[in-house]
């Protein structure tokens, strides 16, 4: 069953890798959230990032941030449920160390943008939330479209 000797040619190996690529493309397409859902998830992420710097000492912005965070969780759960109904159960934590690091790095990057925008806003850069919010929203939208399985290519 397992063969440690390489008994196939380079061309055959290349063809097999192309088959794998095509399978990965198929799985990416079937995992990808619908555009409306991608928009909602990105929008909530953007609002959380935008509202975070304003929320310090302001109960209205704190409320907006919390509602958006809840909306973000609900929309992510909706994506999970829709996929499950279609017959696919997502990996909450992707398999493999490389993929785990990839997802951890994404999480840290998004968190850094939020924390950075809070700190810079406090330091007097009042325009920061207007950049950080859309930046995080666009970034999340791109990641949901290109890496819906959470796997590094």
């Amino acid at each position: 069953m397992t063969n440690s000797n390489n008994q196939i040619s380079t061309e055959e190996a290349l063809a097999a890798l192309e088959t794998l690529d095509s399978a990965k493309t198929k799985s990416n397409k079937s995992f990808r959230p619908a555009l409306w859902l991608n928009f909602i998830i990105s929008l909530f992420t953007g609002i959380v990032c935008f509202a975070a710097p304003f929320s310090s000492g302001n109960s209205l912005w704190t409320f907006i941030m919390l509602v958006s965070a809840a909306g973000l969780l609900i929309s992510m759960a909706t994506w999970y449920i829709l996929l499950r109904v279609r017959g696919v159960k997502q990996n909450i934590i992707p398999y493999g160390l490389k993929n785990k690091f990839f997802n951890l790095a994404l999480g840290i990057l998004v968190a850094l943008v939020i924390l950075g925008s809070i700190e810079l806003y406090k330091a007097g850069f009042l325009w920061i939330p207007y950049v950080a919010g859309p930046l995080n929203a666009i970034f999340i939208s791109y990641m949901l479209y290109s890496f819906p399985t959470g796997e590094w290519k």
Partner: protein
Amino acid sequence: MNSSQFNALIHAPNRLQICALLTSASSMEFVVLKEQLDVSDSVLSKHIKSLEDAGYVLLNKKALNGRQRTWLSLTSSGHQAFSGHVKALKKIVG
């Protein structure tokens, strides 16, 4: 454990695709795999059986609204064998 090792069982195109699709998900329904691979029930069953016998795939049958749903997932040894095989293929290509 994850070292590169060519695996003749996984190397068959359909089985390679089955493993590739199952690595992306925690589990997948038989019908979804069938649609993705564009093969008949019997062909897919045959490939799944080989992978199951090797201990690479786990079958979980559940009944929902009177309909039998078969969920498939890759076992830990299946994940290792698949990633080892992919590494071996990349090694051959260079």
